[in-house]
């Protein structure tokens, strides 16, 4: 009984400590470059933050296997808006859109081993 009480007390203390640590001033945050002015992301930021990997994972199958291009979660469209004005990329500089959060969260971003991270002149014929 006493052990359970001690355990609960420890857990509560940790949780409270965690709540205190969420204080803005003491937590380092990633510096995320803003997207191109005048654009609106296809989903709200909190949805994207949580689910962008899921959206991309399903979209890529549609694109590769079914040939669907320019759809809502098209990676090229993401890059088009989010590319940094200085590096023209989402993944080359430390503050670039993808790299900033991914290095903060220590999650390796595999996409740009194959995908170009810069928006090249994309000829939009009949799509979008």
């Amino acid at each position, binding site marked *: 009984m006493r052990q359970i009480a001690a355990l609960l007390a420890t857990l509560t203390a940790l949780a409270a400590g965690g709540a205190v640590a969420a204080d803005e001033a003491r937590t380092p945050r990633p510096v995320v470059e803003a997207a191109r002015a005048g654009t609106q992301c296809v989903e709200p930021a909190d949805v994207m933050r949580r689910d962008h990997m899921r959206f991309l994972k399903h979209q890529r199958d549609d694109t590769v296997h079914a*040939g669907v291009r320019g759809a809502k979660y098209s990676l090229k469209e993401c890059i088009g808006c989010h590319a940094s004005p200085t590096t023209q990329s989402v993944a080359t500089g430390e503050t670039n859109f993808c790299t900033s959060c991914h290095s903060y969260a220590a999650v390796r971003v595999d996409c740009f081993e194959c995908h170009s991270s810069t928006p090249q002149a994309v000829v939009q014929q*009949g799509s979008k």
Partner: protein
Amino acid sequence: MKTDPAAPPAESKPRRRGFLGVAAAGMAGVALAPGIRLIEIAQAATTTTSAGANPAVRWGMLIDTTKCVEGCTDCVDACNTENGLAPATRPTDPQWIRKIEIKQIKTGRTASLPVMCQHCAEPPCVEVCPTGASFKRADGIVLVDRHSCIGCRYCMMACPYKARSFVHEPLADQKSDVPRGKGCVESCTLCVHRIDKGEKTTACAEACAKAGHGAIVFGDLNDPDSEISQRIRSANSVQLRADLHLEPGVRYQGL
């Protein structure tokens, strides 16, 4: 017969069964409902803008080797430019299309022709791929899904045309339409990124026409009125290694 004192009284058995029945139905509902909701979301979310691969179409190519010039590499250069390939100098460099000079042993007759992925109807590369990364699209184009490719190179062993290349080094500056990277296998895509956007031909066919040779024709093999179908109907053409019965989508004239 002695009644077991631990056995539950008779009337609670139907109640337990009833409870289990309701619980099972409830669990089934809980399990299914999110799936139904997700399907709703999925159908609502994707606003497709390009139509995607059309199963009624079968893309193919016709190459007239009599119009092919020995030493000319316009098709190869165009493919390299279009897809972001570096000009090949080493045996490890990927080549999606190459010019082959052939000489018949018995007669001495020579010919020159480009060879690329033949986009077979029965592709051995698709059969052997362990993850299903090598696949045939609805419109007949054989592709590599680099998200699933683990780089085992079994498809390279299986292809009778040596169509596939392996990326042996880290790459940079890929074309945004043509993602490609180290450790995956790749081959001619029949310029699928152009086709999906509605363009009418591949880079190699376009370059050959521009150079005035016109040796490469690209089109829909399932459309009897397309240029390629008319040409195939009127003059003889062969498939490479037709004896293997792979039904390639690329045909050659003048061989």
